[in-house]
């Protein structure tokens, strides 16, 4: 099966994808260790540090850009994010990282994200390859 993803912020990364329900960086992710702490979230307790996340959309506060940026600075951010709905909040966290000399968070846009769960992905900018474990 082929997947079509549009690179929003290009990056080079590989690893296993984790599909999770929408969450908010602010109030949903610990700025101390990258743990998902959102109330009632099915993956509460998951550490998103270095994970390749697939999530339909992000929810909640506009402070999420600041939280994402701070996670990037502390090296506890996700490795990359696949999103169905691109939002300004996540984009800005990534854009500003570059502005202050940090590596931006790679963001790729596409559908059927649920299918990506536990697949391994290898991404080099515009080249995206998936394999089933």
């Amino acid at each position, binding site marked *: 099966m082929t997947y079509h993803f549009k690179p*929003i*912020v290009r990056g080079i990364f590989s690893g296993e994808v984790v599909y999770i329900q*929408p969450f908010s960086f602010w*109030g*949903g992710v*610990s*700025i101390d260790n990258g743990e998902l*702490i*959102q*109330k*009632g979230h099915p993956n509460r307790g998951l550490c998103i540090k270095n994970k390749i996340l697939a999530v339909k*959309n*992000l*929810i*909640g*506060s*506009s*402070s*999420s*850009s*600041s*939280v994402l*940026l*701070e996670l*990037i*600075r*502390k090296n506890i951010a996700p490795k990359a994010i696949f999103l169905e*709905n*691109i*939002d*300004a*909040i*996540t*984009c*800005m*966290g990534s*854009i*500003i*990282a570059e*502005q*202050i000399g*940090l590596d931006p968070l790679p*963001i790729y846009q596409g559908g059927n994200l649920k299918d990506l769960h536990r697949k391994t992905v290898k991404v080099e900018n515009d080249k995206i390859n998936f394999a089933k474990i």
Partner: protein
Amino acid sequence: MSNFIDLTKEETSFRNLGIKNAFEIVAKAAEFLGTKKLVKITSAHTDSCLYFGESGLMFAKKLSELGAEVAVPTSMNVGSLDLLHPELIQSKRDTKIKAQQLLNYYEGFGCEAIYSCAPYQISNRPEKGDYCAWGESNAISFINSVLGAKSNRCGDFMDICCAIAGYAPYYGLLIDENRKPNIILSLNKISKSLQNQKIFYPLLGAVIGRVSQNQIPIVIDHYLKFNEDSLKSLGAAAASTGDIGLYHIDKVTPEANKYSHLIHQLPVIEITDEMMLDEWKFLGNGKSGDKIDCIALGSPHFSYDEFCEVYQLLPNKKFTIPFYICTSRFVYNLLTEQNMLQKFQKCGVTIVTDTCVVVTPILKNIKGTLMTNSGKFANYSLPNTGYKSVFGSLLDCIKTAMTGKLVCDDLSL
């Protein structure tokens, strides 16, 4: 002169490098969001002044050194300090210093230092049809839904960059076509008596956010009324449980009548008592007599009218548990002028200004149970403060504060 910039065509000149830098960030964001057009804005509200760590400070410093200043009236959201009552904040000294530096940078950009998440009830109040670049999810929801202004949900940094550039990416909720509802929520099955309660609004807001997620809802078959504070609490809750930047309420909010023809074309979701109860459980519904450690009101920041309501309900003795009300310095000054502060102090109420209890360490312990009438506080209390939440009406919060044991008389589902 056109209010739009076509990024593929026009050459733009800038007064200084800071403005150029902010403009380029806005243009890059526009590209990511799939638009080549920017639109001139009339106001901004920036949430970027809330301190989260070095990174935000690094960016503000960069813009400041390049000479950036805002091009449109821009209000500041809460910071992580209470500048009128600094003793309330339990952060480390170094954090406080950096949080202050961050506020200083934003004031240096020419932002108005109101430090409030309800600027629309103070000095920054857009009009219907105005293009804006606002941060702070409750404020975005309010100006879109209640005032009929147009703003996307700007993340931190987007708000200040648009404020400095004077332009915002033209996409999403700035385009009329994208403001029409695509999900209909009927309150046909909810009793009139429940809908008449003030506490119904934030609870309904939380349900709306949960059900609608990133769609635009219109609420029909209801008994809701236009009350600013009630709609403020509804929108704040909806934005915290869902991705809601705009909602419509038939016959109540300013744009709803434009869409009455759609009401019969879209599938209808009926909100049920069960959905309301599930949401109440999620926000915290405790049992009568449960131990409550503190009360927290004021998310979004309390208005003067809300203080007047509490004032009437205050007992003649001191509350037995900590009782916090978060508000702006603007409203705090009104309370001072009206000689109302003393009665609050006598009851042991701590009035928090410039910030709030879920964005900065104010609560005495690292865990416990907090009672609130705010859907937003209830949603963010546990992750941000370690306190479990119980959600109840204002009157029940006050009764509970008398003994420290939960009273839940008002809300019954």
